[in-house]
């Protein structure tokens, strides 16, 4: 499954942002392998593709062999990619996203797109461990066929469904799942508005949200580890879940539930951005929609063909279920905006995390301190762009700032106030301005960042261990939070425990410390291999901030918390 590298599907929506915002938007979520320079040669055709399309990379050679056009993918996170297209910064001839409806329902985004063709299809569905499907009665097709998002939300609320899902604030699957619950609870699918939102239904659905992430590769890895212990369901694209079922890595297979009257299908439009490459675009599209490519895509990536002849020929690859009734895509911005805000600040399990901050002397070089201070100030700031809102500290959130150099200092604790009682009931979405209390705490975080002093060596492993112990203790006291450690370093560990000692100490911690992931930020001269080894032990992920701004990396991490 890892080999397929298929991940983090369309983060839906940066079109909501009106402006470019403060941040560079060229930061890929992963070390993006750019195989083409932006100013490509005349005979190449460059495509900015969302990283969930990495499994389609063999198409580069297939297209070149068949058409002579040198197709070259450049992968990036969906949110950044959408933003890049919208602002005209994509620097590629075309863009290929799982879902471009938000981009295309915005006049500016639409103006960038000269031509578009849908290449393949994959609906967002719910994969449930077979044994749990049986418990719920969903192993019977006639029952499964009638399972609505409302039924799914109720199963989540009662604790019967514990699912993995990519972040609703940043991903297409996550957002469309919330919309499915809204539509289903409101008993209507068209013309949904903010006033239709049944808060209790959303809150119930979120109760089952146990595995958070922003990338399907990451989520799958965790899902395989935690299947039937912490999670028993996975909400994702059909293609991804079918692939997991085929991988042989699951403890048991997933029964696919296609929500009744609430399927959201990704249609993968290939969009021409550079009119001068129209001829190449048409050749590429003709090939991609032709029999050979469509058959390959269906068989290898398990996405449904748009070419109906191939669809007929390959029908056996896909569940032959009943008619899939599509959830209309609401273009109501107040609904989308409000839902995301409410998700972050009210509905989601609140975040509790320790930021392990390297304040060693080397941070004084090359503006590193400045980058760290600014990144912290941004997350405690007021960047109203969509990516900014996700990065921002949310209501109810708990943060411990844990600076370290050659020793680990005392943690400094901040807690953002909640939005008041009774928020998670009733109907509708109201936009809330920050309360005075929230503004005050945000100010304190910014002041804290400003006061950081950099001196001494690097005792990273000691600091991470301290943070994990702290989080674990907090988790036992207050289980109703989503715990994680974010650790940031710019150099080699030269003080305190070494890796072996860290591992030994970690092994002595109670078993359930494993539920706390460590998100490691690679910066400056930090040792990439060592950090990877660390997260392999603790669970979590390494984020590379050597080529991107630290703030954009922090933004990415927020989607995993």
């Amino acid at each position: 499954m890892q080999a397929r590298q298929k991940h983090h599907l369309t983060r839906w929506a940066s079109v909501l942002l009106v402006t470019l915002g403060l941040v560079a938007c060229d930061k890929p979520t992963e070390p993006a392998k750019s195989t083409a320079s932006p100013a490509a040669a005349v005979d190449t055709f460059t495509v900015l593709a969302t990283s969930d399309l990495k499994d389609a990379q063999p198409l580069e050679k297939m297209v070149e062999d068949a058409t002579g056009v040198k197709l070259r993918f450049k992968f990036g996170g969906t949110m950044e990619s959408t933003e890049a297209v919208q602002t005209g910064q994509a620097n590629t001839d075309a863009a290929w996203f799982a879902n471009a409806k938000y981009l295309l329902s915005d006049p500016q985004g639409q103006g960038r797109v000269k031509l578009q063709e849908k290449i393949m299809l994959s609906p967002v569905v719910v994969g449930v461990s077979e044994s749990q499907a049986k418990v719920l009665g969903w192993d019977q097709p006639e029952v499964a066929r009638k399972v609505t998002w409302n039924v799914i939300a109720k199963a989540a609320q009662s604790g019967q469904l514990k699912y993995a899902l990519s972040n609703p604030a940043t991903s297409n699957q996550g957002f469309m799942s919330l919309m499915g619950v809204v539509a289903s609870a409101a008993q209507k699918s068209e013309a949904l508005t903010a006033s239709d939102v049944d808060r209790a239904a959303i809150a119930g659905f979120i109760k089952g949200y146990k595995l958070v992430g922003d990338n399907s590769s990451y989520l799958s890895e965790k899902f395989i580890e935690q299947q039937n212990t912490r999670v028993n369901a996975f909400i994702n694209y059909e293609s991804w879940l079918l692939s997991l079922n085929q991988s042989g890595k699951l403890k048991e297979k997933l029964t696919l539930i296609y929500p009744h009257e609430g399927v959201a299908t990704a249609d993968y439009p290939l969009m021409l951005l550079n009119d001068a490459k129209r001829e190449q675009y048409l050749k590429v599209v003709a090939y991609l929609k032709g029999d050979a490519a469509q058959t390959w895509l269906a068989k290898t990536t398990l996405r449904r063909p748009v070419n109906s002849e191939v669809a007929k020929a390959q029908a056996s690859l896909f569940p032959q279920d009943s008619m899939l009734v599509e959830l209309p895509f609401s273009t109501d911005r107040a609904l989308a905006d409000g839902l995301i805000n409410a998700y972050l600040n009210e509905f989601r399990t609140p975040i509790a995390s320790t930021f392990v901050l390297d304040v060693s002397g080397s941070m004084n070089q090359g503006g590193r301190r400045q980058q760290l201070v600014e990144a912290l100030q941004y997350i405690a700031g007021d960047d109203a762009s969509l990516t900014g809102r996700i990065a921002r500290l949310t209501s109810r959130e708990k943060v411990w700032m844990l600076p370290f150099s050659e020793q680990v200092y005392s943690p400094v604790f901040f807690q953002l106030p909640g939005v008041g009682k009774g928020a998670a009931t009733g109907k509708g979405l109201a936009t809330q301005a920050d309360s005075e209390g929230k503004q005050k705490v945000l100010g304190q975080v910014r002041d804290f960042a400003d006061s950081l002093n950099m001196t001494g060596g690097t005792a990273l492993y000691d600091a991470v261990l301290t943070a994990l112990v702290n989080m674990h203790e907090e988790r036992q006291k207050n289980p109703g939070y989503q715990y994680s450690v974010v650790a940031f370093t710019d150099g080699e560990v030269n003080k305190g425990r070494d890796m072996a000692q860290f591992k030994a100490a970690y092994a002595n911690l109670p078993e359930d410390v494993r539920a706390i992931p460590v998100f490691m930020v690679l910066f400056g001269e930090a040792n990439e291999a060592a950090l990877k080894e660390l997260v392999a032990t603790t669970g979590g992920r390494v984020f590379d901030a050597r080529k991107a701004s630290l703030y954009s990396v922090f933004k990415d991490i927020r989607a995993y918390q």
Partner: protein
Amino acid sequence: MNKAGKAIVTVGLLAIFGAAAYFSVYQTGRQPASGAPSTGVLGGLAGKLTGAVPVEELSGLIALDVEPYFQDPRVQKALAANGFKLNVQRIGSRDMAARVIPGQTPDFFYSSGVVAANQIGDAAKKANIATTVYSPIYTPMVIASWAPIAQILATNGMATEASPGVWHVDLAKLTQLMLDKKRWKDLKGATAYDVNKSVLVSTTDVRKSNSAAMYLALTTYAFNGGEVVTDRDTAQKSAKAVAGLFKRQGYQENYVNGNFDDYVSIGIGKTPMAFIYENQIVSYAMAKKGLSPGMVLVYPQPTLFNKVVFVAASARAKKLGELLSTNTELQQLAVDFGFRIGDSAYFVQAAKATNLAVEERLTQVIDPPSFDMMAEMIDVITREMAQ
């Protein structure tokens, strides 16, 4: 992006009506410097092949609808055999009138609708350029649907199967049903499509697309008690009344084939009824791309024709217009792209070769309102949709 913003406004005001009209084409048309696409020197090869005929070189601006036709080597050869070599450039129909410039006007325009052709005619009159209008090919507006859906409409007394596989739907009754916000599961005998969705016909974005503007013309006609809208007050009132039929669809595709793509690839679950040009599905069926079982055409009673209008702006182009309208080979080749021609028997024969049933003779057909009325109504819808 200023240009996009400006374009949207222009689209709203000018009304895409009569244009083959999708946004990207429009954009392209506005930016000749960015390398507006051209189908290039067509007929060059064919011209050489038949050196016997003296060659007339003509320049023309053509709509998207007829671009594949002119790209077809058989068409190029037939034109060459008749002494024509064409330099054509594809632009949006609604941009054509602006290209009527004394001394720089192309020989002909081939626009995708009557209203765009009228605009060109007006512009030409002002510029003192004589024009002659031909309408060599046309296609009716239809609802691409599914047998179970047509059956449900029939059970509810608004549709009939006129001949095997060809359905008629009473436009007034269907419009009323949709305005009443009826859901499929509320209808009699709806077990085959027992879903909570509202009964709605899918269209592309009315702010940008000609086919959706045609749908607006039909639904306002129905709302207006079977009268074509001819005055501003009625236009305002009717458009306001039917705005929900667009708005309630949610996200709409804004390129010309988007709606049809969803119909054929995603199917009945997303698109039980799609408002399209008949030639879209006929050419699709002819290309043997595989019609799915259950696909049927439902003809609104009444419906509209979309005429593809050839405007000749030079004496030489008049000859071409006549040729396109009367030359059997050139006419019959247009049928390969799903269009109807004067020889309806030939069209019917060709369509029969596919497994798609089409209506042989359409009798109930109305004209769209005037350009001004359409612009007025699209403006109302645009405002309603922004709310």
